[in-house]
């Protein structure tokens, strides 16, 4: 059907049709309209001296002891990396537009197979340096072997104007555990399109946390499949958005077998003219009895012009399940603000405390103390910055 429509300049440069609002799951994020300039793929860009170091130092996790793998403008950077790639094959066949572009354009990405218990977090840092607008695509493939465990951080940083396309495939084996933390701090002039595809096997535990604070336009998909019983996944996230930022998260949790539990919790703080969207879908396949699947999204609107939409969906084909969803959206509780002020706390500080408390609930799902503290620091700095700007 798209063939009939003339391609936009952005589509021309990519050689792909971009999703538009007539496609149900893209109704709030019409990439065809929102991507308003060409981001040609396959552009080799060299970082200028000092850029990489400066951006690395700006990571909220710069002070966290971690084994780093650094990718600069889509290419592995051996000089700043402590760990090299293993050979792990991509297996996910996803037909969404973000993935199709990724398959066509990805230049590099992390490939890892984790065996045993790896205590030190592994951090993938994706850096885009200032250059002419282009698409930077990376693809990560991670395999957590049976009984293995690891904490993996994905940090996205950048300067200038670019479109980052990031796909991560994860397979988690029997009795294995993965804590994944992603922070999206792309340049304020960047577009970030991502898809995480996670397959969770028997008895496995998966924790996923995503902080979305960067980029002007953001779309992050998550597809989570339970393929073995008694597994558990907690997927959480936080938005810290201001100005005209736009962030859309769409998660699909597929309970394909019985006795698995999934939890989704998103806390979204929006200021200025920011636009936030959370679409969560839980599918319980026939036979997936005793499924426990719950999702909730909560938005805190700090200005009258910020906007939040939530679309929870349940698709249930089994009868003995406990599934539910909830979504709230509002501004700060006036009684809470008054209580703090009545104790002598100035209004701006009272609000900052309450906002930090609001997003903090999502950080609580992050187990690693150092990483959680770094996230809290980041949120505190974001709030101070917001106050400084008035």
């Amino acid at each position, binding site marked *: 059907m798209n063939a009939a429509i003339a391609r936009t300049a952005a589509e021309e440069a990519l050689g792909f049709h971009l999703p538009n609002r007539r496609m149900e799951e893209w109704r709030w994020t019409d990439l065809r309209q929102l991507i308003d300039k060409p981001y040609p793929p396959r552009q080799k860009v060299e970082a200028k001296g000092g850029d990489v170091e400066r951006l690395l130092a700006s990571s909220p996790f710069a002070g966290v002891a971690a084994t780093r793998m650094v990718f600069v403008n889509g290419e592995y950077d051996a000089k700043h990396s402590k760990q090299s790639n293993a050979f792990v094959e991509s297996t996910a066949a996803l037909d969404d537009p973000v993935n199709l572009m990724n398959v066509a354009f990805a230049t590099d990405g992390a490939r890892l197979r984790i065996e045993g218990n790896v205590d030190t977090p592994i951090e993938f840092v994706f850096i885009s340096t200032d250059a002419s607008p282009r698409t930077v695509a990376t693809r990560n493939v991670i395999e957590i072997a049976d009984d293995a465990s690891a904490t993996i951080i994905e940090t996205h940083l950048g300067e200038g104007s670019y479109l980052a396309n990031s796909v991560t495939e994860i397979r988690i084996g029997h009795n294995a555990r993965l804590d994944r933390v992603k922070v999206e701090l792309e340049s304020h002039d960047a577009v970030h399109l991502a898809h995480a595809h996670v397959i969770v096997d028997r008895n496995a535990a998966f924790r996923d946390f995503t902080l979305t604070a960067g980029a002007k336009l953001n779309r992050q998909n998550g597809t989570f499949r339970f393929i073995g019983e008694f597994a558990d996944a907690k997927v959480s996230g936080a938005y810290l958005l201001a100005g005209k930022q736009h962030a859309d998260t769409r998660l699909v949790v597929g309970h394909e077998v019985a006795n698995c539990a999934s939890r989704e919790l998103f806390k979204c703080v929006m200021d200025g003219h920011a636009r936030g969207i959370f679409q969560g879908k839980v599918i319980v396949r026939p036979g997936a009895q005793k499924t426990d699947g719950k999702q909730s999204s909560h938005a805190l609107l700090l200005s009258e012009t910020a906007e939040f939409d939530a679309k929870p969906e349940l698709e249930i084909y089994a009868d003995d399940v406990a599934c539910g969803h909830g979504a709230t959206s509002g501004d700060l509780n006036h009684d*809470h603000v008054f*209580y703090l002020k*009545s*104790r*002598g706390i100035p209004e701006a500080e009272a609000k900052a*405390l*309450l906002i930090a408390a*609001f997003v903090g*609930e999502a950080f609580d799902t992050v187990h690693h103390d150092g990483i959680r503290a770094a996230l809290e620091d980041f949120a505190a700095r974001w709030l101070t910055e917001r106050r400084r700007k008035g």
Partner: protein
Amino acid sequence: MTLLDIDNLHVKLEDEDREIIRGLTLAVNPGEVHAIMGPNGSGKSTLSYVLSGREGYQVTEGSVTYKGEDLLEMPPEERAAKGVFLAFQYPIEIPGVATMQFLKVALNSQRKARGEKELSTPDFMRLVKDRAAKLNVSQDMLKRPVNVGFSGGEKKRAEILQMAVLEPSLCILDETDSGLDIDALRVVAEGVNALRSPDRAMIVITHYQRLLDYIVPDFVHVLSKGRIVKSGDKSLALELEEKGYAEFTQDAA
């Protein structure tokens, strides 16, 4: 000098044409304890909210002077820094804000506003531990978010702990005794009495004479339909306990 001077105060709800405080006059001097009693809905909590600066009320007439300044002009945080403290009738829960962090930010914000040096973390911890022990507030309660999961009585004790840490000059206690068991009532009253001093005043709102056995007031006032209809010494509380409010509320009608 009078600490608090309320003169012919009239207050209505901001979005409703109903007058709740209807010509209230009250002077409180340093060192004094004033008890305010009165039927449900007579405006006791409203008075305490107006004094602490809560939104939603409109003063249509009269004035409130505190330490020689117009109290009604100040935002709530300034009133607090200048020593006004309200122990809420219904303390609210604030999920996600740790009690200790909240207390520290509150104390240091007040000190900063007064041009005093902020307290270091160890000094602050010592202060809170000392005050908490005196009020039987457990370490476990201090570890939780503000009031979250506290029982009714625990919330009231936590309010008095905040008061003991912040050391205000005007303490307004709104039904601090309701919800307290007999032992807790004694502990809280002792905590309040420990704060009595020649330069600190208290307004104690209560329905029960029992609290006034512990915190002995200098004056007792009966509030009915938004104004003080009778004032006396502590014997007035005993009289009210015996006879009820009927004779005063009729006067006010």
